[in-house]
């Protein structure tokens, strides 16, 4: 998949590109709104990552331009403003999702995947976790034929780890994904640890959960082996 990163901060744009390349994306960077506008007019992208706070261009105008030109790309808008109106306006103008700065790269990746699922894929996606199976569309965990009862948050946590298989996710990244950039002190407590503990307990009744690893001092990881 190819993606256009519209971001006026070169350092940030390059970090995003470097991360996405590893996930097998073809990345292009536009550092100004004008450059972005030209690129959008000429090329076809699967995804556009659009920073609304461009110095030379109103990000919303760029969004309108892209949509009016019949561009079918998945568009994720990014802003440091984080104001609710921006989010609403962006989604109204045809953006597919919204991220507030600073966001986790893996969060960006998982949003891209989610948009891709919504836009391009209809079949049930199944992921294998040891003896368990994750049904992505119907948001269920199966052990053989049997459904394993977990809470919404526990499922969300497990799926996020599964999508980022073989990567260590920090507690903060996990908490941010599940609860968003909310204004409370969840991170102070061991919310993530408690949820992982509960997942292990609930799944442990059926089978082994050694694939869900604790990485000391960092966080958690689901490994393939």
């Amino acid at each position: 998949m190819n993606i256009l990163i519209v971001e006026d901060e070169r350092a940030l744009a390059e970090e995003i590109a470097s991360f996405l390349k590893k996930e097998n994306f073809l990345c292009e960077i536009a550092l100004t709104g004008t450059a972005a506008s030209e690129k959008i007019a000429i090329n076809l992208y699967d995804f556009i990552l659009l920073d609304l706070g461009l110095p030379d261009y109103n990000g919303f105008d760029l969004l309108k331009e892209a949509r009016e030109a019949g561009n079918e790309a998945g568009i994720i808008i990014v802003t440091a403003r984080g104001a609710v109106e921006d989010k609403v306006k962006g989604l109204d103008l045809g953006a597919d999702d919204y991220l507030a700065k600073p966001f986790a790269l893996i969060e960006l990746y998982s949003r891209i995947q989610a948009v891709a699922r919504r836009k391009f894929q209809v079949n049930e996606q199944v992921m294998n976790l040891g003896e368990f199976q994750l049904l992505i569309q119907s948001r269920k965990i199966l052990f053989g034929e049997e459904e394993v009862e977990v809470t919404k948050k526990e499922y969300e946590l497990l799926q996020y780890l599964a999508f980022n298989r073989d990567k260590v996710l920090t507690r903060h990244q996990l908490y941010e994904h599940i609860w968003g950039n909310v204004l409370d002190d969840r991170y102070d407590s061991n919310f993530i640890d408690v949820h992982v503990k509960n997942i292990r307990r609930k799944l442990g009744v059926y089978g082994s959960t050694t694939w869900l690893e604790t990485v000391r001092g960092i966080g958690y990881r689901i490994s393939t082996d």
Partner: protein
Amino acid sequence: MTIFSLVSRLGFTIIFIIFLPLIIERINIIQTDMELIRKREKVIKLIEEKGLEQFMFSDSVSTFGSYNILKNEFINIEKTDIKNTWNFIEVTNRIIEGETIEFRILNYSFRVHDTNYLLEIGKSTESIKATEETTKRVILVFLISFIVITLASDLLYTRHLLYPLRLIIKKLKSASSPELFDREPIGTTTADFVRLDQTLRALMDKISDSFRREKDITVNISHELLTPISIIRSKLENLLLTENPDENVQVKIEESLTTLSRLTTLVNSLLFIARTESSQYLKEDSFAISDLLNEICDEILPVAENKKIQIKRDFSADFIIEGVNRSLLFSMFFNIVNNSVKNTSPGGEIFIKSYTDNNIYKVFISDNGRGMTKEQMETLFSRFHNRQKDNKEGTGIGLAIAKSIADYHNIKIDVTSEPGKGTEFYFSFLKNS
């Protein structure tokens, strides 16, 4: 002002009533005396005009007396041997038809045809007293009605006069922040109040202007900070994802990311507080309080259970709150309950209850955790101040945020706490929120 005028008037009246009998007695005596003198003049005039014969039909009769039927007045003329002139008033008893009556009598001697006569004109003290009583009563009634009427009119007038002042006070009271001060001029013709109103409005404008500037600066700085934070974060995350065998390096990167996330929370909290204070959040949700609180409880339950803390709920007195921002209220209650969980030891208990008191919706959250000292309570809601020493993680801004949200929704938070016993939070949803 009204009270002062009431008290001064009452004081004056009481003094007046105390001295009233004396004054009236005095006036009455003077009046009686004048009346007696007037009557004397009349009698003397009559004698001068028509002679004594009018009264004394012959020389053989030496006395003339006339009483009215009730015996409260009499005139008496008689021949006398007294040589010197008498002209005085005295109080003596007279016996008239077997009845002893006290009279105030004017004695006056005069000469007619070389004969000395004594004229006595009397008025019974009883009748004098009677008029005195009537006068007293009339004056008292008049006085009382005067006081009542003037007081009432005073009250009405000052009320009317001070009405604009009350309007101004009401405006001041209802404005929880300078921006919310009602800019509509009050309807009054009193120049002083118009000026007061204008001055207040100008002052409020000035204050809100500098507030706004301060907020703008906060918002701008926060935005500027978020971009470099984003860059550092992405760099660190990419580093963490490289195949690095050195575990220590990874742990250090994770620690840096955690520190960075604290910085982010701080910046976002600043942004958030600046935004609530300039009313940038919509308040359009309405829902049952039990819904929200149950959701929060369910969210926190795993952590609480892990810590062996019980959460008891009583939402039997449920209510619907309207015109609020649900996610903000969620954060507010969440932060408080989460704070309670953090400060309660295993085996402890948290109690959450909704109720209505005097038509005011209330929520009560208590724990039997470690409680707070007076000093801790004072800085409880101040931004960045309430970090407890053993709370190593977090920014400690959760309660400051809760307070901002409460203020934004006109919710009053009362806290009572005792070290070692626990803490109680009371939330009151005040009207016009």
